């Protein structure tokens, strides 16, 4: 599903060059649930951004579902992102001006689905996360947990093969965090590959595999080779 070899990522500002990832290699198989942990600034988000085609990388190779993403144009990359990847963010990232229905609709419109198809998918996704009754609400009218569930519905509606989550429970209390985690496990059990960055060791343990990133590298080689 995901195959990264010797990825390097350098952020350059006028004075400093930060090596966010160096010689970063990782394979994730289809259907896996991988948790990613590591100290702050280690490069977790950078890894996730590169995996999700949000950011370019400086060296190495990356194949997503068998497609080498190097050298793809913006529109090709956007299309790939739209079709294969679902994103869940720590800050939910719902669009404040759009109600929940329209928020879930956003990636589906870029996908080019017809009106009826979109409506069906939105309703299915909202039902899956238990928010059918809130479709016409604005994000600001929902609790944090509900917002994150709406964001998950938005990530799921396009039926992506690959779900990327950056601290999805970081802004939630324990009960809500557990609900979201259960939802993710349920999604994973239906075949979706999930990579989740988290600071919560308990949640990290619940994944099939835990990766630790330290200083831009995968820390525990035995874990990497265990695949």
């Amino acid at each position: 599903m995901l195959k990264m070899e010797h990825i390097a990522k350098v952020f350059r500002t006028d004075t400093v060059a930060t090596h966010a990832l160096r010689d970063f290699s990782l394979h994730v198989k289809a259907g896996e649930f991988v948790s990613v942990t590591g100290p702050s600034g280690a490069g977790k988000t950078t890894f996730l951004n590169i995996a999700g085609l949000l950011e370019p990388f400086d060296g190495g190779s990356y194949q997503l579902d068998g497609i080498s993403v190097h050298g793809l144009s913006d529109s090709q990359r956007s299309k790939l992102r739209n079709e294969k990847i679902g994103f869940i963010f720590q800050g939910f990232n719902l669009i404040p001006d759009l109600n929940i229905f329209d928020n879930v609709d956003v990636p589906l419109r870029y996908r080019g689905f017809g009106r009826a198809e979109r409506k069906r998918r939105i309703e299915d996704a909202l039902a899956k996360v238990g928010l059918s009754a809130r479709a016409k609400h604005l994000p600001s009218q929902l609790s944090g947990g509900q917002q994150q569930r709406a964001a998950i519905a938005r990530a799921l509606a396009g039926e992506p093969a690959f779900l990327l989550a950056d601290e999805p429970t970081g802004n939630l209390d324990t009960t809500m965090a557990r609900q979201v985690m259960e939802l993710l496990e349920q999604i994973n059990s239906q075949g979706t590959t999930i990579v989740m960055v988290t600071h919560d060791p308990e949640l990290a343990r619940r994944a099939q595999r835990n990766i630790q990133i330290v200083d831009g590298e995968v820390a525990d080689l035995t874990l990497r080779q265990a695949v």
Partner: protein
Amino acid sequence: MFEFGPILRTLWRNKTGALLIIVQAALTLGIVSNAAYVVHDRQQLIERPTGIDEQNLFTLRIAQLSNPKSNYQDVIRDLDEIRRLPGVVDASFGNTSPLSNSGSSSDMTNEENPDKPVSVLTDLFSTDSHGLNTLGLKLVSGRFFNDTDIGFSGSVFGNGADLSGIVLTRTLADALFGKDVDVLGKQLMGSTVIGVVEPAMVSYVAQDYATGVAFIANFVANDSLTYIVRCEPGQLSQLMVKVPKLLQKLDPNRIVRNVRPVTEFKQRSYRRHISMVKMLTVTMILVISVTGLGIVGLTLLWGNQRRRQIGIRRALGASRLAVMRYFLTENLLITAIGVVLGVILSLALNQLMVQHYQMSALPLSYILFSMLAVLLLGLLAALVPAWRSSLVSPALATRSV
């Protein structure tokens, strides 16, 4: 493809900015369509053909030092000498400078039917036998004056009966006697019509009656006696120097004054219209600029306010093109609403002008053209801000909390 629904719902939640653009677009349309129409109207007035060879004409006046009045024999000698100069096509006298908007106007009345006399305000222009060729008039029928026709009456028209004949422009003949009626030999104000020339403006421009001219052969030796010189193309400026010198040499005891090209008189006569055209053009440019800049500003502002949202959309699969399309569609929707309101405003404004300034109704083409122009303006103004917004990195979605 186009997110009309979500865009409209988003706009509904952010009405103030959109409202501003809507009002600006509507005002722009209202002002530009009407102003463009007035400008075109005036432009046509200014550019309508005069029927005389104004490009190659200049005029001058003579101030006598000893004898207060010009002597006919002197004038004939002067004009003969002028005609002999190389580059001169012809020369004649007139009671005023052509196209100067001052002259002698009076009502001419056709009294063929005593119960229903027809009166027409007319430009009375007195000249000599060379007037036809000097002004560049075209004879339609009959004849122009010959040297023996000249009369010597105290005023321009004098007594109609003293005149040897009268020549009308076709416009005046039509107005007095009916369209295309043969007017040769008809009686008018005690005189006989001897010729008809094609429509031309002589003393007056800009007035409705400007092309209704009656020519008479009458020498009036007063201050406004004017020499009119027609030059070959390109000879005007040098002859405007040579002719006064020649006249001075022929009789040093006088002053040659007011040596001016006829185009200058025309320009001055249209002064009001020209400044109106200028003012309205500047107004249009200002209004368009302000609206354009307003749209640029607001789209930039919205782009900056929604950087995070753009990042999220990019993360969810929006290409750069899709982001641009979003902002352009949004702008187009707003300007379109403004345009619809603008059409109403435009018609109302025109209605006011029709009532108070004798304007005619705004043609549909002006409204359609202005609608297109305002829509295009909105699109162009939004182009750069939309492009800037499309450059927002999708990583913004994960990097900002």
